[in-house]
């Protein structure tokens, strides 16, 4: 079975604990190590790692990146994780678990810069890099061996070393025959990991809980448990007919995933499908006026993002999260595409009006989907004699903001609350 030393790229046929050339303990072995080409790369505790890099004095301390007076944990470093702190955990709970932790507010702009730098290093390996989030990407290295004169596994080991030395954070790599297995592999060995899943996928997955599969959240897992399905192996045993009958229309696809099958390609230029803006409040809000004040700011932010991307909203989704973390989304198609904050706000407000029944909300968001080209936005509207004037007004506002900054001019409505 081929074995790769992740420190010196030495490939040998005898998996041992130490590399014969450099003595490193970091090695990875797998029967298909030198042929598999789809990778999933995930940065380890990305925000926390970037912060620790910039503040070496925090290196040995538990660090939590998260925000606000009542926010949640965005990222916890691996030291904080030892105390049980997890992402998305309410901050008060995290502080209780790990009182000595250092807490820093997230600096998204900084992380975005680092993310782009890492992505650039990835593109040195292959043009087929599909960013999945700020700290995750799928890579297809098929056919690159001739160019690099090294198999994908070796190139990935080099990437990990480059990211460590040039960016100062560590990554975990999953290698597999498809995106699903690459992702599952990456999750198996973290942090600073390198894991491979190949032909043994089905056997490997069989004893695992169904919740391991992407897309299987608590609700879906509970539903399957209700019909006696808890292990991936049980899903693997179903044929398409049984899957359809037992699990509904998505059943056959789920069974294929359970078997480790995935036909999705790595697509570097995946089109933007939606643009959104949202905010979590400092305290729960239930009043119509307070919520509308926030909605206006979000509508303005969304309008600005649409404009920046050259888009207009063909439909609008209102997203609300109640104080008890129950998600509510409401969608509406727009009669004509728009990028005007006024119209985004008006549509959002009519959807919001149906939800403001005294429920306390912690989060409010607006999403534009489907997206339409900006050129189709806000045409002359025979039913709205003021439409043309509104478009002209917004253009003037945008011009002022481009020149003097976003705060130079705004609606009175935006000053409330």
């Amino acid at each position, binding site marked *: 079975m081929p074995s790769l030393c992740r420190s010196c790229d030495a490939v040998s046929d005898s998996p041992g604990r130490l590399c014969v050339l450099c003595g490193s303990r970091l090695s990875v072995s797998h029967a298909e190590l030198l042929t598999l080409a789809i990778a999933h790369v995930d940065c380890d505790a990305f925000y926390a790692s970037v912060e620790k890099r910039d503040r070496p004095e925090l290196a040995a301390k538990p660090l939590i990146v998260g925000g606000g007076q009542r926010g949640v944990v965005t990222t916890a470093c691996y030291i904080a994780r030892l105390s049980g702190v997890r992402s998305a955990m309410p901050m008060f709970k995290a502080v209780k678990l790990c009182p000595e932790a250092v807490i820093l507010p997230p600096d998204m702009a900084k992380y975005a810069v680092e993310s782009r730098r890492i992505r650039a290093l990835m593109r040195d390996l292959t043009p087929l890099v599909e960013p999945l989030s700020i700290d995750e990407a799928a890579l297809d290295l098929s056919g690159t061996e001739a160019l690099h004169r090294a198999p994908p596994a070796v190139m990935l080991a080099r990437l990990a070393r480059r990211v460590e030395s040039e960016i100062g954070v560590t990554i975990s790599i999953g290698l597999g025959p498809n995106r699903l297995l690459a992702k599952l592999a990456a999750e198996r060995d973290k942090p600073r990991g390198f894991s491979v899943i190949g032909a043994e996928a089905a056997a490997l997955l069989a004893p695992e809980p169904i919740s391991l599969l992407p897309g299987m959240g608590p609700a879906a897992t509970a539903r399957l448990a209700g019909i006696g399905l808890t292990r991936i192996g049980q899903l693997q045993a179903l044929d398409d007919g049984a899957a359809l009958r037992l699990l509904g229309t998505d059943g056959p696809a789920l069974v294929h995933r359970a078997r480790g099958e995935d036909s999705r390609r790595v697509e570097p230029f995946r089109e933007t499908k939606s643009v959104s803006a949202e905010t979590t409040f400092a305290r729960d809000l239930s009043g119509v006026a307070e919520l509308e004040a926030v909605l206006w700011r979000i509508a303005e932010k969304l309008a600005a993002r649409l404009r920046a991307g050259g888009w207009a909203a063909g439909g609008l989704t209102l997203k609300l999260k109640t104080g008890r973390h129950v998600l509510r989304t409401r969608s509406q198609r727009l009669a004509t595409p728009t990028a005007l904050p006024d119209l985004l706000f008006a549509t959002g407000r009519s959807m919001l009006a149906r939800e403001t029944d005294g429920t306390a909300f912690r989060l409010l968001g607006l999403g534009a989907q489907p997206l339409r080209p900006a050129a189709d936005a806000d045409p002359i509207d*025979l039913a709205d004699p003021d439409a043309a004037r509104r478009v002209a007004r917004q253009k003037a506002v945008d011009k002022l903001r481009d020149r003097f900054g976003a705060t130079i001019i705004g609606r009175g409505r935006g000053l409330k609350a």
Partner: protein
Amino acid sequence: MKFKAERAVLLKALAHVQSVVEKRNTIPILANLMMSVKDGTLTLTATDMEIAIVEQIAATTLQDGAATAPAATLYEIVRKLPEGAEVEFNHPGGDAPLALRAGRYATSLMVLPVDDFPSMTAGSLAHSFRLPAQLLRGMIDRTRFAISTEETRYYLNGIYLHTAAGSDGVKMLRAVATDGHRLARVEEPLPEGAEAIPGVIIPRKTVAEARKLLDESQEDVEIALSETRIQFTLGTVRLTSKLIDGTFPEYERVIPRDNDKILRVGKKDFAEAVARVSAISTERSRPVKLALGPDLLTLSAASPEQGSATEELDGGRVTYASAPLEIGFQARYLNDITDQIGGEVEFLFSDGSAPTVVRDAGDASALYVLMPMRV
């Protein structure tokens, strides 16, 4: 309650009133219609709380009284009874089922309490006037296609009926509808009694129900209205409806005044050419492009999957003397308008992206505005 009625007479009345009953109802009584009989007259009433239709027909009264019965079922039964049958209804009162007999056929229908049946009062209708059924039909047909279905702009979900000064300054009765993409405006001489009517927005469903009743009629329609209600009376049928509580946009401001590029084309030639070139695309919202040159109109359409089509209309069939122009419209919107035009269509263009005015060259009472699409 006990009475007999002729199947044909009953069926016609049932067809009118049951049509207002919503197919899916959360309030059970709204699925029923009320029948009440007195002194040889049967009164049938159905309502969806927005619209009520009341129709009176002759019946042989055996015992005065009232009952409610499921509208759709009753209509289906009567429709399936043999022609010429005499139908007998008998309801002893209370919760007892309604017995219906015709010849050797008998059925019993569950009833709901008469007291639960909502009554829709018209209140006082300060204005009333009469219009020939044919004229009202024309006003509806030439505007209703432009009624919006967009729920957020509920004030566009109907026909705006109001008075306004026509081109020569004389006050006219106007009907206007728009969905933002097209606008239809029809005006007719102001009938006596309509001088002071408020502008009202008649809901789409009311328009549709009224239009059905008008179908069969050659007489005058009596229209009575207030700010909140409108009532159409045709012979023995009376339709009362709530009005949309909203403000119709100031549509006059969007009607272009200075469009000076004039195209005239025969309606039949044009409509058929539009149908032929747009057949290339199954996607209904794809544009048909009109390219104009001196006495030449080239229509074209393309579909990325299926290909393209063009058709030329020249000299004998088209008059155009202005600068060359290219403009695109949704085929369906063009059809909706040309369907309402008799002989010759007149287009008044400004440029390829500005609202276009369409008229019937032989009829000044209607005016249409159409927004172009990018091509």
